[in-house]
């Protein structure tokens, strides 16, 4: 067959078939926009929180108020219930540490109230013996020389 008589067939070119990747791109783009809007621009606002979610400064204020109320009323059960709301891992440690901070800041009355509540929570020695919860090792009493400085506030234990 001669070249000039060869039949050439041209297949009609239709619209090119495109991959649907653009749909995935749009979905991912929308997802990112949605998350930015939901987390940053217009996040969920909680209108009913608990004292346990308060910031540290507010928790300190709340704790000090509880201690002051206990110092004036002597109602330990109610103070304990209120302290539980703050969800401190170790309420006695939290009270002692805050008492030391208040003492350092010159707020003696507040420090006294906090220390009073901390010592009341520790309870009498008989009650501590019956306590089944594990407690950090306590320092053993030593014979101090006269005039040696002693702790006036609960000794803070190591944070977990």
């Amino acid at each position, binding site marked *: 067959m001669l070249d000039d008589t060869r039949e050439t067939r041209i297949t009609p070119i239709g*619209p090119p078939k*495109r991959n649907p990747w*653009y*749909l*995935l*791109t*749009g*979905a*991912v*783009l*929308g*997802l*990112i*926009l*949605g*998350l*930015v*809007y*939901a*987390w940053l621009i217009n*996040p*969920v606002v*909680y*209108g*009913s*929180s*608990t*004292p346990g*979610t*308060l*910031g*540290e400064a*507010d928790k300190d*204020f*709340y704790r000090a*108020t*509880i201690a*002051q*109320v206990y110092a*004036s*009323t002597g109602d330990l059960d109610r103070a304990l219930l*209120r302290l539980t*709301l703050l969800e401190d891992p170790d309420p006695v440690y939290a009270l002692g540490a805050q008492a030391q901070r208040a003492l350092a800041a010159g707020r003696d009355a507040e420090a006294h109230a906090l220390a009073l509540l901390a010592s009341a929570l520790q309870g009498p020695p008989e009650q501590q013996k019956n306590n089944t919860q594990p407690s950090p090792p306590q320092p053993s009493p030593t014979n101090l020389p006269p005039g040696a400085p002693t702790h006036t506030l609960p000794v803070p234990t190591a944070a977990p």
Partner: protein
Amino acid sequence: MKSRTWRFVFFALAILAGFAAGLGYGWAINPVQYRSTGPHTLQIDYQTDYVLMVAELYQAEGDLAMALARLGFLGDTPPLVMMNDAIGFADAQRYAAADLGLMRSLAFAIQQALEGME
């Protein structure tokens, strides 16, 4: 419609679907967790208990200015409104009469002070 136009329509629909999924995830499934909320967001029962604490301290100290300062912890709501809300809640929840009396006493003192200022 042309094929190109349909592609834009589907692209926009995909963005909308992704946006809706993002909102659902960000608001319902995994919303922002606040770790440091303010006292003004406390539930009414916790606010009422705090107001009761302030009333107990006012009973012991008799210091109205300090009581007002302590009430300010709960936000910018006027103290008398705050007291009335707390008393209303405490009344509905059948708080002890002594506790209600303390709160009413503080509310009365605040009201007297406000009337004295006018």
